């Protein structure tokens, strides 16, 4: 693992679900510290793509390198990459049988072998960062959706990852809670975290993204800085998509 190379380098990535060709030759390089927003119609393969990066899905062909480490058949490389890549899910996926604090300290103590006291200190720091330190001893079921998603972000941060993947982090939230989560994400972005976000929050994309990637039918159709993408999309399908998303 070499922190001076590109954070993520994907070349000619293919993924099949049975006979369905979900990713059809993806090429994508993300530099360290870059913020990339991935968008596209539902079913276009956005989730599949970012889940390949931490191997929640096994890819069928092509190379994925994370900080130079090739994701191959080697068991060690997957473990190594999952330690360094955090992920935030659409449905939070907090562990309901653990308190917020336990959710946050679980992986650091088990995977990084940090002492409990230290892990709790780190966890409190990140819970403060996402502005819910007072909820540390509650269970996820006792929190609102927005709070849960912020806990999920804190949980991912506690592993002190170099890259954070977001898979539609706000689409399961009520409108009034979206802002509180986006705020946290924006502040993360300003601190230099490498971020790959699948989201349809175009305001967020405009504000923080270095690049917007538009996917359709398992391919990257368009790739551009946000101003360019929103003001002058080149591709027909991106135009149609933008009209639908922004039209609402």
């Amino acid at each position, binding site marked *: 693992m070499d922190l001076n190379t590109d954070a993520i380098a994907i070349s000619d990535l293919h993924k099949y679900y049975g006979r369905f060709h979900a990713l059809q030759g993806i090429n994508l390089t993300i530099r360290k510290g870059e913020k990339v927003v991935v968008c596209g119609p539902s079913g276009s393969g956005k989730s599949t793509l970012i889940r390949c990066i*931490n191997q*929640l899905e096994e890819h069928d062909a092509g190379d994925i390198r994370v900080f130079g480490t090739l994701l191959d058949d080697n068991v060690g490389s997957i*473990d190594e990459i*999952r*330690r360094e*890549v*955090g*992920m935030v*899910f659409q*449905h939070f*996926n*907090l*562990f*309901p*049988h653990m308190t917020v604090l336990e959710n946050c300290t*679980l*992986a650091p103590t*088990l*995977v990084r072998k940090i002492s409990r006291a230290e892990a709790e200190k780190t966890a409190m720091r990140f819970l403060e960062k996402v502005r819910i330190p007072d909820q540390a001893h509650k269970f996820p*079921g*006792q929190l609102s959706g927005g709070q849960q998603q912020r806990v*999920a972000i804190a*949980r*991912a941060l506690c*592993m002190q990852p170099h890259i954070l*993947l977001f898979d539609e982090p706000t689409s399961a939230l009520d409108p009034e809670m979206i802002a509180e989560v986006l705020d946290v994400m924006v502040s993360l972005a300003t601190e230099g975290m490498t971020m790959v976000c699948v989201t349809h929050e175009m305001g967020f994309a405009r504000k923080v993204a270095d690049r917007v990637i538009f996917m359709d039918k398992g391919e990257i159709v368009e790739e551009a800085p946000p101003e360019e993408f929103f003001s002058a999309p080149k591709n027909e399908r991106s135009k149609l998509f933008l009209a639908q998303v922004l039209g609402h």
Partner: protein
Amino acid sequence: MTLATDFRPRHSRLYRLRRAYFASPLTGLVTLLSVAILAWLAWIVLDWTVLQATFDADANQAICAERAGACWSVIANRWRIILFGLYPLDEQWRAGVACAVVALVIVLSCLPLMWRFSRLALVWVLGTAVFYTLMRGGIFGLVPVNEQQWGGLPLTLFIFVATGILGMPLAIGLALMRRSELPVIARVSGWIIDTIRSLPLLAILFTCAIVLPFMLPGFLIGEKLYRVIFGAALFFAAYQAEIIRGGFQGIPRGQEEAAKALGLGYWQRMGKVVLPQAFRLALPATINQFVIAFMETSLVVVVGFMELLAASNTAFRTGEWRFAYIEVYVFISAIYFAFVFGLSRYGAWLEARMSAGQRKD
């Protein structure tokens, strides 16, 4: 609905009684019949167990026969055989204490406070160790008592506890294997589970007790009791594995994915994320399975063990108490009933508590 009842005029008690019991000629008939049967049953039971019964410990058949009710003298004379089988008379206090230890273990595991894997494992292993030391003896100045002399309630409890201790890890193993990503392991363990489940427990016990010695190399044969316990544990595990699998199915996929994304390894994911949640979901069914396992300990009578049922059979089959079999069966039924009813009530209470907790979230 609830709103409407608030405005309804209140009816007299008589009216409500009549509505519940005599709304139509048919319900009236059902009521009369049920009440008659209930009263008749209550009278027979009361009459037989108390009013006409003989409580004198020194009574014999002739004295008992003078009265029409139960002859409880048989219990007074035979309770040691029923409860402890052929365990040496002078050492029976040890068997009694051992039973109390097991009862304590069971009560402890019912307390939510104890629901940590480590605590449960500790209590059960420790309890079994104390039980075994007490029963078997040979150390701490206790006279050694061979397993073949064990009998009655301690043997029943030992088989039950040992089945649980052995069966539960086996069940977890089978359940994990059945959901393995490795197709051969998943498929084959699925076959094993399904096959065991379609066999009758009695056939498995019989195979273990009588047939297995022909099929195992000498050093693996071991004591018959432990072979039978192994068979019971295997059967328990096959059923419990399916219960745990039901628990797995209730956990959203995202839970394991989140654990993977955090970098947790397989055993960490299973131990900290998947299994705790699966067990919570499967708790009522698990308790039910334990209840069934307890009742099924009585099947070992068929392969020649002196557990509670067999011991009580010998208690009345010897000469003078031959006539008093009903009393003996009522006595051990009360023991079984207390245990089984208590545990299943507890399970029902837990289920209600859990579903109430779910609604709150």
